[in-house]
């Protein structure tokens, strides 16, 4: 008789399921309370405040939709949106391609692959603000040799941010891809080999379709991370350089959406509600994109 392994079937036993069914509200409660206090309540209050003029959340006065009108009329918001969209496209592609390539290399049999995994993962452990300041020093030190500096033009700032974020996030995304790659069954790869598939064919026809669940989660993470990018943006360029347009309007050329919302809030009391309205628009935008992306990549996943 083979040794009995714990396959989890015991959980399906009626003896265990019945008390769980009865008592689950009690066990969910602490987490659910935290969720309400930390997420649902502030979220609802945020939506309410986007219709108000307020200095602090406790002295809000209802003003209707005027905050939303002002938000859409603000040229800096549009500019920040396009900056963010451009940044998201570039960083999603760059991070996922490089992370996958590294993950693929590190799942092949090679010496020291564990060490490399650790090393690549480490940048992810450093906070965004710290990274932003460190990289601004690195970039400035390099650019100094060419008698220029990071905030000299928007292009430097943009690519600086892309490099920073890629450096930071590739390790994390790589770990997810490694887990996905390790789950690809050896049998399938062996079958492909026997059928005469070369390594590129194996990669594109067998491996990638099988890691689509990882691709889904990784694109989701990089998409939402790019849109929510804040601390790195603030610490690296703070939106500089600022251009004063012919009509007098001032545009922060390397400002992404989250930073735009933050600086709108800081204009003065009358803009707090506008920033809040922008945040609500921002939420709807990110949620829509994320859902669209999830359903698009899910279709590509194969059932095993």
């Amino acid at each position, binding site marked *: 008789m083979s040794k009995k392994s714990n396959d989890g079937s015991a959980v399906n036993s009626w003896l265990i399921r019945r008390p769980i069914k009865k008592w689950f*509200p009690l066990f969910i409660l602490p987490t659910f309370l935290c969720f309400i206090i930390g997420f649902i309540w502030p979220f609802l209050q945020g939506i309410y405040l986007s219709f108000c003029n307020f200095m*602090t959340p406790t002295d809000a006065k209802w003003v209707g939709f005027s905050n939303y009108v002002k938000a859409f009329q603000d040229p800096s918001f549009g500019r920040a949106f396009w900056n963010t969209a451009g940044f998201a496209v570039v960083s999603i592609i760059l991070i996922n391609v490089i992370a996958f390539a590294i993950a693929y290399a590190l799942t092949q049999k090679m010496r020291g692959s564990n060490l490399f995994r650790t090393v690549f993962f480490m940048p992810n452990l450093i906070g965004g603000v710290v990274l932003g300041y460190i990289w601004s020093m690195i970039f400035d030190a390099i650019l100094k040799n060419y008698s*220029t*500096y990071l*905030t000299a033009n928007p292009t430097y700032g943009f690519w600086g941010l892309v490099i920073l974020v890629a450096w930071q996030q590739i390790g994390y995304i790589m770990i997810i891809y490694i887990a996905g790659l390790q789950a690809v069954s050896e049998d399938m790869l062996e079958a492909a080999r026997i059928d005469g598939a070369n390594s590129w064919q194996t990669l594109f026809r067998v491996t990638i379709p099988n890691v689509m669940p990882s691709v889904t989660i990784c694109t989701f993470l990089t998409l939402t991370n790019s849109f929510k990018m804040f601390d790195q943006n603030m610490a690296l360029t703070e939106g500089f350089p600022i251009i*004063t347009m012919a009509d007098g309007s001032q545009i922060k050329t390397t400002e992404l959406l989250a930073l735009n919302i933050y600086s709108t809030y800081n204009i003065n009391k009358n803009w707090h509600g506008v920033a809040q309205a922008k945040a609500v628009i921002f939420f709807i935008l990110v949620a829509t994109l994320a859902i669209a992306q999830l359903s698009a990549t899910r279709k590509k996943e194969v059932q095993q």
Partner: protein
Amino acid sequence: MKKIIALLLAVVMVVGMAAMFTGCKKNEVGKVYYLNFKPEADEAWQALAKEYTELTGVEVKVVTAASGTYSDTLNTEMAKTDAPTLFQCGNAQGLIDWGEYCLDFTGTDVLAEMTTSDFNLKDENGAVKAIGYCYEAFGIIVNKELLKTAGYEVSEIKDFASLKAIAEDIHARAAELGFDAFASSGLDGSSSWRFSGHLANMPLYYEFRDDKVTEQPATIKGTYLDAYKNIWDLYINNSSADKTSLSTATGDMSQAEFGTGKAVFWQQGTWEYANLVGEKYNMKPENLQMLPIYCGVEGEENAALCCGTENCWAVNAKASDADIDATLDFLKWVVTSESGTKMMAEQFGPIPFKAAKEPANVFFADANKLIADGKYTVTWAFNHTPNVDEWRAGVVSALTDYSAGNGDWDAVKTAFVDGWATQYNKQHG
């Protein structure tokens, strides 16, 4: 049935917790929570708060916002249940934002202790919303010892032309002398306010003086921007700092350059006195002097230092009565007691209160001497700046590009003049 009991139990737990929280909140003794915005005075405030608590048993909490983050910190702290009872509200912008949080000082003991109301902020109804607890002056600080080594006397600096000649000569001989004319004019956030705020006061002051502007104007003309360019060029061309790296040069760097004798001139204010003569740099007071900022405006040889204040205390009107009383008592003690006035004199120089002590700060002596000589005080015209952080950011960005040779002076003008109108509209929009 059990499900219902479980839910009931849960509800009891939550209610119990909530009751506990509200139970703790009630306290009859008032306490003071001061949100301080001057990091350089943090230690002194902490020590004073401790002494007051030992003396009276009243809890005084002093929190200092990190450099440049005061308005963010104030916003966050004010939304809390235990909001600051005492904070700074220093200019017109502050009154727009925080006006309804400012207690009217009329009739309070601390107001009765004041010798002048020149620095106080009043609203349109005449309510005293914030009291100026000290005033400050800024200008060009000179290391007289180094100036002498270079072969000059302070008395030779009378206007822009003489300042320029001396600075350029020192810069030309920098390698031989071992020091340069000006400390670095960093445009990093920790230093850029010296130029987008304080130096920009020069063109603003002269323009407002010509046009008799006394309230925040919707637009400005930039009549004296050439003078602004004169002095800025002088700063960046006669310093050891690389012009392309100004965007990352910090305030601490310039302080160290001046403090360690690597530069003769440093544009700063009276508040730096304690740092310069303190343990870190050990500069001798007799070697320090503050000169007016000369920038090539006609008649400027009669200018004194730039005097004004953004240091105004406001008491949170939305705090509990007990806390308000405790805060007003604390303020009174600060401006009347031995240790309070001593600390104020050391940290802030002359304060407009009856019991004020004579400060050791030589820069104030310089300021007073110039005024006594009949020269005109350059007031703080920049207090009128609309949406001040954004306006300054625009000017800094343009200045950075101009200095690095990456943009022209016209961009600075645009940021200065058009930026003003834009930010005015934004502030009132």
